[in-house]
C-alpha cells in the first residue's frame, strides 16, 4: 500500500516548526531593561544604509546607558533589538512580525529606510500599537491615517516646497541673478516621485521657473549619455538632481563632467542623503563633487560637532550621514518618550511622542527644528537643511543658524 504523503508532510512540518522555533520562547525583558527595535536592511542591495543606521543607534544606546539609562524607571538599561529587513517587502514585514511576536516587551522602534519597507513594517507595528519612528519621507507613510507612525523627515511635498525657493534665494544672493529655467533629472522611485510631483503641478510656475528638460528614468541607469545630451541641448539655468542610488549618481555626475557641464557650468541642486555619502567621494572624486548643493531632511549641524567626532572615531567613517544621525536621534527621542511616559508601555510611549515638544537635548540636536509631531505623525515647521560639498566633505550650509559653513553658488571658472 502506498504510503500517504500526509505523514511525511506532517512530519516535515513538525520538524520545521522545531527548527524555526529555536527562539520559540519569547524574550522576556529583564526587570532592569527596556527594549526598543530597529528594523533595517542589513543584507541585500541596501545593506550599507542599514549598517549606517545601526552604527548611529548603537552609539546612542551606549551613551544613554552610560549616562544612567532610563531614570524614570530606576536607571533601566535601554536595549536595542535589531532585525534584518532584507531585500524585499515580504522579508521586511516578516522581520517586523517576528520581532513583535518574539519580543512582546518592545516599547518603540525605528526603521526601515526604504519607503516600501517602512510601509510594510508599519502595517504590522500599527496593528500592534508599537510607535515607530522613520526617516522615510514618502507622503503615503503618514497619509494612511495611522496613529503610531512618526516621520522625522518632512514629507516629500514639504521638502520640494522648501528646496526650490531656498536654492533660488541662494542663487540670487551668490550670483546676483535669479535663475529663470530649470531642468529635472530623477529616478522613478517613490521619494523623488513625491518630491517632483508638486513641483510639476504648478510649484515651479509659482517661482517663475520654466521647466526646459524633464527626464525620469528607471534605476539602475545603464548609460547617462542620452539623458545628459538632452540636458546639454536645453541649457537650463540649473539642474535638479533627484537620484537615490549610487550607480546612477556616478553615471550622471561623470557624464556631466564629460559633457563639460560640471564645475560650475551647470549649477546642480540635489535632494536626498545618497548625494552625501563617503563612497560617492571614493568613487567619483572630490573635485567633481565640489560645490554640489543638496537638500536633505537631516544632516549634522551646528551643535553636533562633538557628537559627530565621537561617531567618526568610533566607526571610522569619514563623516556622519543622515542614516546614522537619524537613527541616533530616534533612540534619544524614544528615551525621552519613555522618561515622560514613566512606564515601559508602548501605548504610553506613543502618547508621549505625540505630545512632546523638544527643543533642547540630544534628541533635538539630532534633527533640525523642534521635535513635535502632528496628529498624522508629521513634523511641522521643519527647516530644510542644505548641505554642500566643500573641500571633499558635505557640510551644512543652510539655514544660517544651523550652518557650519557658508554656501556659495558655483560659477563658471
Amino acid at each position, binding site marked *: 500500500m502506498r504510503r500517504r504523503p500526509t505523514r511525511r508532510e506532517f512530519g516535515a*512540518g513538525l520538524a520545521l516548526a522545531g527548527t*524555526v522555533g529555536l527562539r520559540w520562547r519569547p524574550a522576556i525583558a529583564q526587570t532592569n531593561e527596556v527594549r526598543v527595535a530597529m528594523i533595517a536592511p542589513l*543584507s541585500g542591495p541596501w545593506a550599507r544604509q542599514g549598517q549606517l543606521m545601526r552604527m548611529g543607534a548603537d552609539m546612542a544606546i551606549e551613551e544613554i546607558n552610560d549616562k544612567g539609562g532610563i531614570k524614570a524607571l530606576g536607571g533601566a538599561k535601554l536595549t536595542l533589538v535589531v532585525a*534584518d529587513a532584507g531585500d524585499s517587502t515580504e522579508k521586511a514585514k*516578516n*522581520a517586523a512580525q517576528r520581532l513583535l*511576536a518574539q519580543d512582546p516587551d518592545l516599547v518603540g522602534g525605528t526603521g526601515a529606510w526604504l519607503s516600501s519597507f517602512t510601509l510594510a513594517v508599519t502595517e504590522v507595528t500599527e496593528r500592534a500599537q508599537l510607535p515607530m519612528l522613520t526617516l522615510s519621507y514618502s507622503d*503615503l507613510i503618514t497619509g494612511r491615517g495611522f496613529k503610531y507612525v512618526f516621520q522625522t523627515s518632512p514629507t516629500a511635498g514639504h521638502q520640494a516646497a522648501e528646496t526650490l525657493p531656498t536654492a533660488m534665494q541662494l542663487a540670487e544672493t551668490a550670483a546676483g541673478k535669479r535663475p529663470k529655467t530649470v531642468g529635472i533629472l530623477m529616478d522613478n522611485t517613490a521619494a523623488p516621485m513625491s518630491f517632483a510631483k508638486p513641483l510639476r503641478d504648478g510649484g515651479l510656475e509659482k517661482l517663475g521657473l520654466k521647466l526646459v528638460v524633464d527626464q525620469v528614468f528607471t534605476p539602475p541607469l545603464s548609460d547617462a549619455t542620452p539623458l545628459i545630451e538632452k540636458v546639454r541641448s536645453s541649457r537650463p539655468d540649473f539642474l535638479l538632481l533627484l537620484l537615490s542610488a549610487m550607480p546612477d549618481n556616478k553615471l550622471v555626475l561623470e557624464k556631466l563632467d564629460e559633457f563639460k557641464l560640471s564645475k560650475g557650468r551647470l549649477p546642480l541642486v540635489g535632494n536626498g542623503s545618497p548625494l552625501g555619502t563617503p563612497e560617492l567621494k571614493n568613487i567619483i572624486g572630490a573635485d567633481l563633487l565640489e560645490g554640489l548643493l543638496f537638500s536633505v531632511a537631516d544632516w549634522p549641524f551646528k551643535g553636533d560637532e562633538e557628537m559627530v567626532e565621537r561617531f567618526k572615531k568610533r566607526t571610522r567613517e569619514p563623516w556622519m550621514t543622515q542614516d546614522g544621525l537619524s537613527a541616533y536621534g530616534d533612540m534619544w527621542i524614544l528615551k525621552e518618550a519613555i522618561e515622560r511616559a514613566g512606564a515601559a508601555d508602548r501605548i504610553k510611549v506613543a502618547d508621549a511622542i505625540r505630545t512632546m515638544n523638544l527643543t533642547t537635548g540630544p534628541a533635538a540636536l539630532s534633527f533640525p527644528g523642534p521635535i513635535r509631531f502632528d496628529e498624522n505623525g508629521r513634523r511641522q515647521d521643519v527647516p530644510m537643511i542644505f548641505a554642500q560639498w566643500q573641500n571633499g566633505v558635505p557640510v551644512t550650509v543652510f539655514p544660517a543658524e544651523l550652518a557650519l559653513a557658508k554656501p556659495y553658488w558655483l560659477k563658471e571658472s
Partner: protein
Amino acid sequence: MKSAAARRRWAIVAVAVVVLIVSLVIRSAYYQLVLTQVLLWAVLSLAWNILSGYSGYFSFGHAAFWGLGAYTVTLGMINLDLTPWLGIPLAAIVGGLAGAVIGYPTFRLRGHYFALAMLAYPLAMLYVFQWLGYQELSLPMKRDAPLLYMQFADQRAYVVLALGLLVVALAVSLRVENSRFGMALLAIKQNEPAAEAAGIDTWRWKMRAIMLSGALAGMAGGLYAVVLLVVTPESVFGMLVSAQPLILALFGGVGSLWGPVIGAVVLVPLAEGLNGELGDVLPGIQGVVYGVAIILIILGAPEGVYWRLRDRFAKPRAAPLIAAEPVPAVTRSDARPTNRGDLLALRGIGISFGGLRALDNVDLVVREGSLHGVIGPNGAGKTTLFNVVNGFLAPDAGEIRFGGDQLTGLRPNQVCRRGIGRTFQVVRAFPRMTVLENVVVGAFVGAHDDRAAEQMARAALDRVGLADRAAALAGGLTTRELRLMELARALAPLPRLVLLDETFAGLGHDDLGGILDVIRRVREEGVTVLIIEHTMQAMVRLVDEFSVLDHGKLIAAGRPDEIVRDRRVIEAYLGRRWMDRVTDAVA
C-alpha cells in the same frame, strides 16, 4: 478497493485538517504569517506545476500572473473600493486571461526559447507599472468595516483563506492528473510530435494549461497583496517571484501533486528561519546557507524530494486508469472494404528546405485496403513525404486528398483525427509511461471518454500481440517491443490508414518475421498501410505496390515484380556502374 484518485482526495483533506490544527495550536502571529506564506507560495508553485511541471514547458515568468493578480486586488480596492472578496476572484479571471494572451504567441516556441520568452513578460510589466506611477501602493486600512475588506485582526483568518486556495489548487491539480488533460500534458512533455501525431491537440491543451495556471497564480497573488498590504512592482513582478515557484517545485518534485507542497513546507520556513536567526548576526550568511542547502539537496535528489522518496520507498507501480477488465474484441464492422478506390492521393507534392528541393512533383496513390510501400535510397525524401502527409510540414506545391477530403494545411492532430495513424523512424515512446499508457494516449482521439480509450488501447495491444507487456515501462522495452507498441498506438483509434516509417530498422531476422505477420494481419482487418522501408527483401514479400523515390522525385511505381526489374530503380539503388553489369548479366 478505493482507487488511487480517491485516496489522494482524502490525503488533501487530511493535509487541510493538519494545517488547521497547526494554525490553531500556534499562537504566535509571526508563525501564522509564515504559515500563510508557505501556503501562498505552495499555491503559486502548484499553479506553475500545472503548466510547467506536467507539460515540460518551463515558465520563468509566472510572476506576471501573480503580479497582475496582486495589482488587480490592490487597484480595485484603492480606486473602486472593491472588496478583496470580489477582487480575488477577479484576479483569477485576470490571471486566466493573461495566460491566454501570453500563451497565444509564446507557445510557438519550445524548450529554452519558451522559458526565456516567459522571463521577459513580468519584467516588462515591472517597468510599465513603475512608469504608470504605481511604485508603492498600500491597501487602505478600513477601520470601520474590516471584515468586509478582508482585514482581520487574527492572522489565522488569512491562514484559513490561504488554505482554501491551497485545497482548490490541489483539487484542480488532482483533476488534471487523473484525466486526459494530464495524460495529454505528460505526452506533450515526453514527446510532443508523437503526441501531435497521435491526435492530441497540443495547442489547445497547452493553452488550457496556461490559462488554468494563470488563474490560480493570479488568485494567489491577490491574496498575497491582502496579506502584505503593500505592493511594489519589484515585490510582485520581480525575478525572485518568478524563481520561487520553480525552486519549490523542482526541489519538492516537479510534475507531482505533492512536490510543490513539500517544497513550500521545507524551503519557505527554512529561508525565513535563517533570516531570523542569522540575519542580524552576520548579514548575508542566511543567503549562503540557503544556497548551499538547495544545491546539496538537489545533488542528492535531482528531480526533487518527492520522486526520490517515492523511488526509494514505494514500488513504482504503474497504476492503470481503471482496473483491468477482460478485453472485448474490437473490430471494425466494415472490416473488409467493398470498394477498392483511392484512399490517399498525393498530386504534385513539392517542398524545399533552404536551397534543397526535398520533394519535387511527387504523385502517389494508395488504394484502399492495399499495402503500399515507399522505397528509395537514403535521403530520397521518404520521411519528408510522410511528414507532409502527416501535417508536420506544409508543402509549397501540390495537394493531398484523403478519402475525398483535403488534407493539405491541416495540423498533425487534425490529420490523425481524420483517420491516419503514424509511427516514426526513431521510435517516439513516452519512456516514463507504461506501454498501456503510451497506447492510451493514441486512443483518446477516437474515444469519447477515458474508459473507452483504455479499452481501445487494450484491444490495440492485443492486435499487435503485446498485451502481456501492458504494465511495463516503455523505457525498458526491446526494439521489437517498441515498434509493436508504436504500431499499437497508431492503431488504437481505429484509423483507416497507417503510415509506418522504417518499422524494420534495427530488427533481427526472427523479429522481422513477427512484425511482418502483424502488419499483414492488420491489413487483413481492413486497415490500409503505407510503409517506408529501404530493405528490399522484406518489402518484396509484403507489399502490393511500390512507389520509388530518388532525390525527391518519383521515379517508378507499380507491382513488386515490375519494380525489381526496373532499370531506373536499380540505378538509383546501385548506381550506373552496377546497372551496366546487371543489364549485361540479364541480357
